């Protein structure tokens, strides 16, 4: 069951008005233009014992992604593919809005949007993750851990996911004399096979304005938000309206164009980060 949030801070109308006045002049409170995401920092391999990891800061929103790879069974309906599991935790360290406990609707929505964007567009080469069709497959656990929340968890989480995937190293197997297959080394040098890069672009609608990468204040005063996920060819590989409001068709078309352009910015930053880490392939 989902209930109208009751713990969200009430936004004084005046604050919203001030934001909109600034927008009328073409500015945002943090001096960005409407279409530019905040400063992005991406550091990969921050966890020595995980198969892949990345710490992403999008402004002050901080996401740590950790990837563990384990032996498991393929799903009965996809016997020749590996298994993907995406989980997000909105940890109480990250914000006074987050309480300890089982994942709430926000963390479930976040992880399911990331999951769908990886799965159906086959961002990961799932067929390369089968060991023994119908029987043994790799299970990819992607855990997204919010360390600081200042708005726009989607884009930060997607950057963390992609950069962690790009630095993920598969475990190494060995076959025992009994024929049994076991993990010999938790982490080898072999990368995981990635088919394509994707980025998420979140925009907020505030009055008549559509702005890219809202920070927390902007999220709170926004009418509603759109998450569009793009691949490098410009296809849309995932979408989610999130938040309580609505869009006119004109606003949707506008949002698509703005998001499509902003996706190029994210791709550029992602590529730079991955190059900095000397992990291109």
């Amino acid at each position, binding site marked *: *069951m*989902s*209930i*109208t949030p*009751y713990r969200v801070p009430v936004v004084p109308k005046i604050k919203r008005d001030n934001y909109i006045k600034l927008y009328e002049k073409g500015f945002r409170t943090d001096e960005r233009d409407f279409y530019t995401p905040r400063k992005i920092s991406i550091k990969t391999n921050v966890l020595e014992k995980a198969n892949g990891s990345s710490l992403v800061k999008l402004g002050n929103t901080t996401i740590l992604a950790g990837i563990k790879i384990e032996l498991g069974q393929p799903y*009965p*309906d996809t016997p020749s593919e590996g298994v993907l599991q995406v989980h997000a935790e909105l940890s109480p360290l990250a914000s006074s809005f987050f309480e300890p406990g089982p*994942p709430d*609707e*926000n963390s*479930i*929505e976040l*992880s*399911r949007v990331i999951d*769908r964007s990886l799965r*159906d*567009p086959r961002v990961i080469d799932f067929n390369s993750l089968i060991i023994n069709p119908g029987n043994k497959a790799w299970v990819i656990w992607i855990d997204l851990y919010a360390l600081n929340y200042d708005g726009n968890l989607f884009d930060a989480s997607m950057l963390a996911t992609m950069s962690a995937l790009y630095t993920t190293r598969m475990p190494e197997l060995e076959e025992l004399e009994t024929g049994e297959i076991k993990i010999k080394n938790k982490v080898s040098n072999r990368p995981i096979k990635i088919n394509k890069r994707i980025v998420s672009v979140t925009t907020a609608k505030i009055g008549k304005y559509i702005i890219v990468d809202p920070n927390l204040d902007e999220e709170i005063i926004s009418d*509603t938000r759109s998450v569009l996920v793009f*691949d490098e060819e*410009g*296809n*849309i*590989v*995932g*979408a*989610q*309206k*999130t*938040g*309580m*409001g*609505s*869009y*006119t*068709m004109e606003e*949707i*078309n506008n949002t*698509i164009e703005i998001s*499509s352009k902003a996706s190029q910015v994210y791709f550029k930053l992602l590529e730079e980060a991955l190059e900095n880490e000397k992990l291109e392939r």
Partner: protein
Amino acid sequence: MMARPEKFIDESGRRVDGRLPNELRPIKMQVGLLKNANGSALVEYGLTKVIAAIYGPRESQKSVSLPDRASLRVRYHMAPFSTEERKNPVPTRREIELSKVLRESLEPIVMTNYFPRTTIDVFVEVLQSDGGTRTVAATAASLALADAGIPIKALFGGVAVGKVDGVLVVDINEVEDMYGDADMPIVAAPDLNLVTLYQLNGVLSKDEFQEAFDIAMNAITGIVNMEKETLKSSYQVENKEGDLEK
């Protein structure tokens, strides 16, 4: 498990169930069938059957009470017998997400400011699932809210647009959803030109993505017209038998 069809569109341009790409499944609507609920509706798109019930507005529990508006509680739930394999009644992550996006699709439509410090419950139960359940749920919620006399800005409805064999098709069924290239559920209030829910699972070009909205808006306009007819005739003939009992 259903098998993957070899082709989704045959030589004559027809889909696996004989429909044309822009053709909806047979739709049935009925309101007021639950006696206790303040409003209720049963909506069927083909074999997908969803029932919605409204309770409220009733006074909120203090801990969740909002001073300037009603709270909405929305539960999207699948009956254990609604799915291919019997479904455990414990809410899944999918049901939790869909309850959220459905609630968020209702927030801009329901005149919550009329009823501060109250809660309006919208319970939707999927009785049989054959694709598009969340969009059928939206249509059922629209009718049930109207049946309950809860003021809403406009009637709304939902439909899922899909892509199979490279063609955009409207109101996809379970096979098209499971094996198609894309599934895009959309909820809208066409009289206000407002889209209140969209999601995409799969891959679409930017043009296809925009075209999907046009297809959906067109379909939903027809669906909302059916809602109006249903509500009109329900005021005339009270207590007609439900389709579940045909």
